């Protein structure tokens, strides 16, 4: 199986889907001539032409709004927002339009739209460029939210997202673009709404997604040295949540720590914890714990920034403190 970076796996998914269906096109700031600010759309302009790889002005509201309109008109747009931080400028179109049109008009119109955008922190980019917004999106019915952690998942889920008839927020991670991994070939797709057991274990379940998967992975390896066997679940899809996979793991381990790089308050960890206790309170041997970023606008200074973010050591400490 070929090894690809997360970036190139996404690129391959875009290329394959554009080859498969001529109604698939991409638009966004610097996706064409510049080849993508993170080079995810590299080579696509020369391969597919300017009609299907459309550079836009820096105008997020009309990037997303025109993508929704194009989807209403029967196309399958993949819109790139350069970073998730800019998605707030398009929030009216995402929440009030994309997520509503299908339901509000009684199913008459589909909005097959993928919004690709990277989030992530830890690169000293300051308060306005070091954010995670999955909570905003998962809160809104009508949207699907996907956050892949591996190159294979990035490809398989992006292909499925492009084929899906719903508006999808596809959260990439700017810290993962260079990560390499084995990626299956042409017809590889992965289902929406399915988590995966990334590592099997017996004693505690670590629930993670996107970059927090690697925090959990590092923690699991530290815990292993202490004789604790951690199971890791990679959520992959954040809306809808795969509670079946989560509960099956809780049934085995009876302990849960949720790891997320987003702010603590309102973190998706709270939703997962609530759902576990609604459906599986009796499965738990200890209160559910969460390891998240601190509730603070991200400072530029490296030491302060690292102190604001969750680390494997925090996960280890949390697990060790559980009864």
């Amino acid at each position, binding site marked *: 199986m070929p090894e690809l970076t997360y970036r190139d796996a996404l690129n391959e998914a875009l290329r394959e889907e554009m080859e*498969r*269906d*001529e*109604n698939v*096109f991409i638009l966004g700031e610097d996706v064409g001539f510049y080849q993508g600010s993170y080079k995810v759309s590299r080579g696509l302009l020369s391969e597919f032409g300017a*009609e299907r790889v*459309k550079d*836009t*002005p820096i*105008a997020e*509201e*009309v990037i*997303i*709004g*025109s*993508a*929704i*309109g*194009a*989807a*209403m*008109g*029967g*196309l*399958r*747009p993949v819109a790139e927002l350069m970073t998730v931080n800019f998605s707030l400028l398009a929030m*009216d*179109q995402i929440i*009030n*339009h994309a997520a509503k*049109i*299908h*339901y*509000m*008009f*009684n*199913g*008459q*119109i*589909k909005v*097959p739209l993928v919004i690709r955008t990277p989030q992530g922190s830890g690169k000293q980019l300051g308060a306005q460029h070091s954010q995670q917004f999955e909570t905003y999106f998962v809160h809104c*019915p*009508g949207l*699907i939210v996907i956050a892949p952690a591996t190159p294979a998942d990035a490809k398989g889920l992006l292909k*499925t997202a492009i*084929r*899906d*008839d*719903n508006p999808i927020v596809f959260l990439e991670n700017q810290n993962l673009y260079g990560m390499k991994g084995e990626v299956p070939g042409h*017809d590889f*797709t*992965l*289902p*929406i*709404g*399915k988590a995966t057991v990334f590592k099997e274990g017996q004693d505690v379940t670590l629930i993670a997604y996107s970059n927090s998967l690697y925090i959990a992975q590092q923690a699991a390896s530290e815990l292993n040295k202490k004789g604790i066997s951690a199971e890791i679940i990679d959520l992959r899809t954040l809306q809808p949540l795969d509670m079946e996979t989560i509960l099956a793991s809780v049934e085995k381990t009876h302990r849960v720590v949720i790891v997320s790089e987003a702010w603590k308050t309102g973190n998706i960890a709270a939703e997962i914890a609530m759902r576990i206790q609604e459906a599986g309170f009796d499965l738990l041997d200890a209160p559910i714990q969460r390891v998240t970023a601190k509730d603070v606008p991200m400072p530029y200074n490296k030491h302060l920034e690292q102190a604001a973010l969750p680390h494997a050591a925090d996960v280890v400490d949390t697990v060790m403190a559980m009864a």
Partner: protein
Amino acid sequence: MKLETQLTTTELLNLYQKMLLIREFEEKAAQMYTQGKISGFTHLYIGQEAVAVGAISAILDHDYVITAYREHGQALAKGCDPKEIMAELFGKATGVSGGRGGSMHLCDIEHRFMGGFAIVAGQLPLAVGLGLSITYKKENDVVLCLFGDGAVNEGAFHESLNLAKLWDLPVIFLCENNQYAMGTAVSRATSLTNIAQHACSYEIPSHRVNGMDVLAVRETVEHAVRYARAGHGPSLIEALTYRYRGHSMADPLKYRAAQEEEIWQERDPIPNLAQKLIEQNITTQQAMDQIQQEVTQILESAVAFAEESPEPPLDSLMTRIYEPFSNQNPAPPPKKSLLNPQ
């Protein structure tokens, strides 16, 4: 003033009938609102009929209309069934949007009426996208995008005009300047009160037209439609008009001068057209009475239909939030476009 038009008597009477239908539909809606049959925000189109009727008469059935929340009249002008519109206002399952949308969210895909949207200027970016879908598929349709004077101050207006021109999309941006954004007069909200002139910033041709004259609106929109179909791109039209009622049924209308209202009442597009049609012997009073009777009948049956229609079932609440996920039908073939199943 003589009617200068190439239209046939039938075409002229159709325009008159549509305007009268809208006027009386709205009066009926107001009555039903007062009786508690219609709830929520209800924005009446009374006074602005010539804009929707003139503009929509200048496009084809296959062209798109997308608009804001004062859209009952525009939906009627596009050919949507008055019964289904009234049923939607009543929140019934038989409404155009199944009772899920209400007054502000009428949608009828069969008539390419792509929706009423209730976030000011939110529909303009969508219109750009519909326009893009047309050029992408190398079709020859146009998008008629209606909005009010309040939308001009939103960022979405400027982003949309810019991109529509940048990509030369077939979108007619039609601003219905009814002089007030809710209770705020245009001069109190917009630095450049000649809204048509905003088009200069984007190198888009613009027209300012008397929105109380159905034939003038029609002619202006026809021009913009020809321009768009020829591939030259978008236009901005400002139609000067007036709503005779408040912003919504909840508005007591205390911010306008009586004298101003009188001036605009004299410009009422419906009696003015009727008078000209009779005076110039284009039609007879008898034919006009006949139209009036038809309209009354249409509205009586619309109300009866809405009254008798069922509520949407409670078990429909959580349905159609999403389309079935694609992984339930793995590896689908390329989809035919939604609106052109061939």
